[in-house]
């Protein structure tokens, strides 16, 4: 099943995918997806993000693939929903999207081995992990000014139940900018796969339901500008649409 959190006619609703672009609300109504405002499908508790977790992207950024996962955290302020607007400051020369498979934890995980890792997964969604490279500083890099800005992490549209994604380690990802494909990859090329990431993070901290792991992005990042429509899409998980607007 695919779940969403939306605003319709002045109220927030939980909804499920009713097919043909429609959503079923808990109160029995079905509504068209373009009649609703989409919120992130969950309010994440702790968000882990992986840097350089695809071998080709590591090469693109002139880094050697890391020996242990290079994780950082994002705060709750940064998320927006499907079809949202992301603010692009005028003084930034290089701002790029990152299409990422996002794993939602569904069950407490502490010192979990990779063999049991999927037992702790509730489902998956799509994240667009924007970065504003002009603001990079070499302190706790990537610093939060680059990676945890308001509006800069679109998430959604759906939370897709774990069992509806039989092989999350073999999903095609792609990004289009104004309809032109700029990024393409497959989750099989992750340096540290989902079980390895759950094993790693849960080895030194306790994960809880609502925690979110953004698993990194493949090769193919380009600068995007105000007015651009950026679509990050993962096979079987979702197609997340975002528009950049100039930061006033």
């Amino acid at each position, binding site marked *: 099943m695919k779940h969403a959190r939306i605003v319709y006619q002045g109220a927030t609703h939980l909804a499920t995918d009713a097919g043909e672009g429609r959503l079923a609300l808990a109160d029995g109504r079905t509504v068209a997806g373009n009649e609703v405002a989409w919120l992130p499908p*969950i309010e994440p508790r702790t968000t882990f993000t992986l840097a350089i977790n695809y071998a080709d992207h590591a090469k693109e950024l002139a880094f050697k693939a890391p020996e242990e996962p*290079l994780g950082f955290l994002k*705060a709750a302020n940064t998320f927006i929903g499907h079809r949202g607007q992301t603010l692009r400051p005028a003084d930034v020369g290089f701002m790029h999207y990152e299409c990422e498979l996002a794993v939602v934890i569904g069950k407490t995980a502490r010192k979990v081995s990779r063999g049991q890792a999927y037992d702790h997964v509730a489902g998956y969604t799509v994240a667009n992990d924007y970065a504003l490279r002009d603001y990079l*500083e*070499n*302190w706790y890099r990537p610093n939060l000014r680059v990676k945890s800005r*308001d509006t800069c992490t679109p998430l959604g549209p759906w939370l897709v139940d774990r*069992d509806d994604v039989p092989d999350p380690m073999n999903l095609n990802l792609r990004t289009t900018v104004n309809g032109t494909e700029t990024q393409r990859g497959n989750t099989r090329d992750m340096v540290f796969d989902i079980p390895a990431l759950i094993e790693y993070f849960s080895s030194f901290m306790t994960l809880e*339901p609502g925690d979110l792991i953004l698993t990194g992005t493949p090769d193919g990042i380009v600068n995007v500008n105000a007015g651009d429509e950026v679509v990050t899409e993962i096979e079987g998980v979702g197609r997340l649409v975002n528009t950049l607007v100039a930061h006033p």
Partner: protein
Amino acid sequence: MPSSQDYAALAAGPADSRPRTVVGALLNYRQALAALGDAAAEPPYKAPPKAPVLYIKPANTYADDGDDIALPADVQEVEIGACLGIVFARKATRVDAARALDYVAGYRVVADLSVPHATFYRPPVKQKSRDGFCPIGALAERGQVADPDKLDIEVRIDGQVAQRATTGDLIRPVARLIADVTQFMSLDRGDILLVGVPAGAPRARAGQRYEIEIAQVGRLANRLVAASA
């Protein structure tokens, strides 16, 4: 899985009264930056910090005054970061320094516990995000604190004074820090912004008890214990 019921629980977000976000400022005491000397301008940093550099203390780190804090087997000692925590009263976005304190509900003593680390190049997830590594003290309402930029801080370990500091040494004082952080990151009601760890944070081991006192704000004390295997 999950059933729609489980989804409803996930969608709602954290249910308790804990802060949604606790975020701290790196190197915000003059002496802490000065202690790095020329290294701040050399690789891997190449230049001293310009904008506030922040780190997150995630939800698994939250603990209370009086809790025992378990040190995992791979952690021999922890640094006791004696932090003034600014608590927000309402959502703060791109706030002017002149109005910044209007957004403050009050202050808390917060212990930012860290596995000691000499490099600040990569995010300190493994060093700062262990379970229980962010004990949070009681709220002192804003009106109880005459000037948040003139508060004496004292850390005692097993009753002995281990550190004295003052928020008078902040590079970005409270209002300026709020203004600069909310330029890029909104903080919401209940969220906590840690103003920084004073230079020369003392260390403690399992079996020891620390107490942090910040004048006009309060006290926070925890015992460190060895985690059971």
